[in-house]
Structure formats: C-alpha cells, structure tokens
C-alpha cells in the first residue's frame, strides 16, 4: 500500500512537472526580450571572458590588465567612461559556458572581449549571440571558428588577430623555404588549440611533399623522453604547438640531449620565458610592442599601473579588442543618449579603427569577422634567452 502511494506520488510529480514545462514553453517572454539600454554618458561595462585562473592564468591576467588600460585611455580619447569586468572561463569549455551565462544575465554589460580560448568560443558563441552580445577575441586562433564549411562561431564573434591557418601555414612555409626541411615531426597535446594548429601545419607540409611524423601527447604527460626517442635523427624540424611552454622547452632540450639536430618551432602558446633553448623559433599574432614606433607612452602607462610586472605579447591584443568595441559604442552613441547590445553589433564594422595598438589602422575583412590583413610574426630565441623578431610570416 505504502509502495503504491510512493509510485503514484512519483509519477504524479513527473506529470505535473512535464505539464508545467510544456504549458509555459515560452519562457521569460515579454519584458525580458527588451534588451536593457545603457546610457552613453554613464559607465560602459565591457566583459572579459578569459582564463583568469588555472595553468594559463598568466594569459588572462595579462589580457585583463591591458584591457583595463584600454578602457581608461581609449575611453578618455573617445569621451566615454568605460570599465572592464572579468569573467573567469578557465580552460574548461563547460565552465566558460557558465561564465557566459553569468555575463549575459548582467544587463549592464554591453559587449565583451574574449573568450580567450578556441574551445571557450565554440562553447559560448551561441549563448552570447542569443543575447545579442558581441564577443571580440584577442587570442582564440582556431581557424574553424570562422572558416570552413560550417564555422563553429556565430556572427556575433569577432577576432582581431589572425587565425591559425595563417600561423600554421606560415611556420610550415618558413621551415620549408628558409630551412630546407624535408622531414618533420608535428606534436599536439590533445586539446583544441594544439590539435587545430598541428593539423594546419601537417596539411601544408604534406602538400609540399615533406615527410611528416605526427605524435600526440596527453596533457598529463610529463616525461617526453620516450616520445623524443621516436623522432628519427634525420628529422629537420619539430613543431610543438603547445599551450604549455615548458613542455615545448623540454622537447627542445631532449632533442639536444639525444643528439638530434632538429630545430623546434613553438606556436603562440609557447611565447613564454620558459621556452628558451637558443635557436628555437616561436611565432605570435602580435609583434613586440616595443618594436612599433610611438608605443612607448602606452608601455609606460601600463608599467605605471602594474608595478612589478613585465609586459608580454598577449596583453596588447586585448587592448586592441577593447579599442574595437569602444569605437563601435562611440559610433552607436552618435546622436543618441543610450545604446543597446544590438546597436554595438551593427557598428562593429562601420569604419576603420585609427591609432591601432599594433600599428596603423585596423579593419575587419568584409567576408568574415577576422582582420583584413592579419599576420603572424616569427621570433627566434637568442643565446641569452631573449626573443629576436625575425619578420612577418
């Protein structure tokens, strides 16, 4: 008897829940669908979906500091009061999704920079697009986000740095043309960034008839000795597009230890003091800021705001992303007193962005939301561990 009552109660609850669900199949209709408008004269809140904690936290912290600088300086130049709010995505795309949902629920946030990782973009672009939030990434370089048959990201996704199809192809081309490589090994670390970049490199190499060995390590592999042992001693180039520079460095060190002559190419994820075997190459989507004339003032301003820290190459693109958004906001605010999320989207590509942090002025491509003439820069590690800029890929 008791048992039957229980079963009845259970089924009854399920039915009730289902009815409730199907009855109100149109949730939060009405007032919610009206996006809140933000006053042009008040504080413009820009989100920053990035990796603030975890192994890649240096990336997010750097981006946040440069974004805050941009909000101050560019905001002052444009007569806007802007603020950057960080939302931690970590490296787990599912956490990125929760962060995006939190951001979207904050009605005062008008647009966002980031997500910083390609996996994060894939997971959150639809949620952000549904809420009409423009997201401009300064670091997610997976080509599949905007290119290919079915791009993973939505139309609200923008990128102000070139993508991996440029980086991978560029590196491979340099290795073949300048270093005469005809045998190569390509690593990946079983996560979206490295796999995407590795695939691009491998494809180009194979097209140019280079013998390619592909090796895949897990993110928990710590001792690469056995992997390096597999690399034939007549290999010319080893590509290590890792996000963890110390791993790439270990491979370079092991190659020397095992008497192999191959030269190591790291990706933009390995631009880090830990990657320091002289002679290795590394590429990045931004040139060294100090090499661009006229940027000393910005560098000094950043140093003043961030005592004790050294500027890196990842931060300035975040500055650029904020520039892009603030110009769109300024254009959307022309002649109006308030602005909504959708207005920002409409003005994103309505004009060039002058005084671009990475030199010259910036334009988006008319076909995709990628930069019109995005490029990657190649560096080589010197004997004292510093990076020397070689040129554009």
């Amino acid at each position, binding site marked *: 008897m008791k048992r039957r009552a229980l079963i009845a109660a259970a089924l009854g609850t399920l039915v009730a829940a289902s009815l409730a669900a199907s009855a109100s199949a149109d949730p939060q209709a009405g007032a919610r669908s009206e996006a809140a408008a933000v006053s042009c004269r008040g504080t413009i809140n820009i989100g920053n979906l990035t990796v603030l904690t975890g*192994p890649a936290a240096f990336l997010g912290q750097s981006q946040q500091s440069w974004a805050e600088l941009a909000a101050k300086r560019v905001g002052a130049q444009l007569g806007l009061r802007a603020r950057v709010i960080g939302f931690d995505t970590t490296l787990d795309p599912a956490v990125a999704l929760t962060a995006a949902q939190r951001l979207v629920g904050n009605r005062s946030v008008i647009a966002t920079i980031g997500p910083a990782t390609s996996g994060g973009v894939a997971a959150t672009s639809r949620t952000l697009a549904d809420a009409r939030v423009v997201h401009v990434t300064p670091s997610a370089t997976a080509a599949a986000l905007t290119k290919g048959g079915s791009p993973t990201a939505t139309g609200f996704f923008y990128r102000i740095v070139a993508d991996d199809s440029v980086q991978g192809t560029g590196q491979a081309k340099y290795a073949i043309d300048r270093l005469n490589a005809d045998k190569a090994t390509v690593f990946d670390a079983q996560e979206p960034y490295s796999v995407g970049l590795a695939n691009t490199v491998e494809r180009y190499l194979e097209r140019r008839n280079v013998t390619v060995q592909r090796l895949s*390590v897990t993110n928990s592999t*710590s001792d690469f000795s056995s992997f390096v*042992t*597999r690399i034939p001693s007549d290999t010319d180039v080893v590509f290590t597009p890792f996000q963890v520079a*110390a791993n790439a460095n270990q491979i370079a060190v092991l190659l*020397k*230890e095992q008497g192999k002559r191959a030269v190591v190419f790291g990706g933009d994820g390995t631009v880090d003091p*830990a990657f320091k075997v002289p002679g290795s190459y590394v590429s990045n989507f931004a040139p060294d800021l100090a090499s661009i004339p006229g940027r000393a003032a910005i560098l000094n301003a950043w140093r003043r705001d961030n005592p004790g820290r050294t500027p890196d190459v990842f931060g300035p693109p975040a500055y650029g992303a904020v520039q892009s958004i603030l110009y769109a906001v300024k254009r959307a605010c022309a002649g109006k007193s308030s602005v909504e999320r959708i207005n920002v989207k409409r003005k994103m590509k309505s004009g060039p962005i002058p005084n671009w942090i990475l030199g010259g002025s910036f334009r988006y491509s008319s076909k995709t939301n990628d930069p019109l003439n995005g490029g990657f820069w190649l560096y080589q590690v010197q004997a004292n561990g510093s990076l020397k800029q070689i040129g554009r890929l």
Partner: protein
Amino acid sequence: MDYDKLFQTIVNAATLGSTYALIALGYTIVYGILKLLNFAHGDVFMVGAYVGFGILTLFGGALDPSISIWLVLILMTIAAMVACAVLGVVIERFAYRPLRSAPRIAPLISALGVSFFLSYSVQLLFGAQQRTYDSFNWDGGKLFEPAITIGSFTISWLRVITIVASIVLMLALWYLVSRTRTGKAMRATSIDLDAAAMMGIDIDKVIRFAFVLAGALAGAAGVLFALRTYLVPSMGFTPGLFAFTAAVIGGIGSIPGAMLGGILLGTVEALTVTYVTEWIGIPVGLSNLVIFSLLIVFLLIRPQGILGRPDIKKV
C-alpha cells in the same frame, strides 16, 4: 636495427622505472603495515619537488646561484626528503590514525581529501602555471652533456645522476629494512599487526618509521623527476597512479616487488610509446589506453602481483 633508438629506450626505461620504483616503495611499505591505499602519496611526491624549487630559489635560482649549483642540488634533495618525511608523519597522525578502527573506506576517503587539499594548496601558494628547475642552464648545460659514451650513443649526466641516486636510495632502504631493528619490527608488523603488537613492538613508532621512509623516498623522487621535467600542482597524479600500479604488479607489501614492478612498468611505458604504438598502428596518444588495458588484464590474472602472497582471508 636502430641501436641508438634501442639504447635510448633502455635508458628511458631505467629513468622512468627508477622514479616509479621510489614512489612505489612508499606505497608498498605503508600498505604492508596498514593495508591502506595512500592516495595522498603522489601529492607528497609533488610537494617534494616544490620544496626543491623553494630551496633553489632561496639560493638565487638556476642561473646565478650563490653557491655551487651541485651543492644546491644536494641541499634540495635533502630538504625535500626531510620535508616529505615530516609531511608523511603529519598526515598519518591526523588523517589516518584517528580512523584506524573505522570502516575500511574511511581512511581511503580521508586520503582522497588529503590529496585534494595538498594539490590545491600548492596551487594556491605557487600558482597553477608550470615552473622548472631550469636544469638545462645549470652550470652551462653540464647536466645534459654526455657522461658515458658507447660508440655513437651517449648518456647524459642527468640520466646517470637520476639512476645512480635512485639505486643508492633503494640500497639504503634495503639496508634499513633488513638490517636494523626497526626495519625488522616493520617487517613483522606487516605480516601480522596484532601479533607484532602482542610481542611488544611499538606499533605507532613502526608506522611513523614507515611514513618517514615513504616520504623521504617520494621527496627525493620528486626532485629527481622535476629535474628532468617540470613542476605543476597536478604532477603527482599520473606518476602516483603508475607507481601504485607498479607496487601492485610487483606484489603489494613486498619491497623487492615494488622495485621490480617499478622497473617493469617503466619499461612497459617506454616500449609502448616508442615501439608498440608504431607496430600496432594506433596514434601514440592512445599509449595510456594500451598500458591501462594491459594492467587490468594482469590484475585479473594474478591479483597478488609477481612477488606477492595470495591474500587468504581467515575466518
């Protein structure tokens, strides 16, 4: 026949195996007495590596040490061994001892909690990003220069130091366990705890000794491991898992078994990555899968391990 590749694989196997053996010894010693899977042991290993890092920083870092870098290495190892021995004793005293009469699952869960606590605490204090001893730049790169040359094949100083140090430690352990009184008491306790207690052996002291040994070995292993790889708060998990498996394969509770198991597992790993995955034709990223599958099969066939005694339950 690529002899260079073969020799290199042998060296890799020895290096990997020695690390696993050192950690496995810690697992087996503790399990032998307490019948407890010390999940936190891998993280003790990790703490050892970080203590080494702290000492290295204290003496000025890899590039500009205030005393000879080789002396620093010795100090790092000693400091790590001491710190981990103390850590092991503290963990035992506060997380395991209160649970000696609790159901078997309780200290296991407690160990999981300690493991969690340790790795996230280190992350809190040191950050989650990778750090290195920068061993490539020690003394102008001396560590990676050849120490032994056989024809065209070379073994670097790093490997030699790692393997020799591990052998020395294992010999020291063997001496402590088989030739000293406390060692004898330890062996007696691991055979039958109650009988040993009734014979007048101070069980608490024996257990403390066991954790000191386990911790010291793990600490040393941590420094040696970080010397050729890197440091990250989660670095203890996979080596810990592999080392525990090595202990089980060798026969848990048996000290020579742990050493054997460690070497064996190191060899399996080196062979799988370098040769086997190529032969079978699967991507090398699946090597872990191969290794784990083999281990499961082995455990099912012979659960007591190679040198272990079958576990007979007396009613």
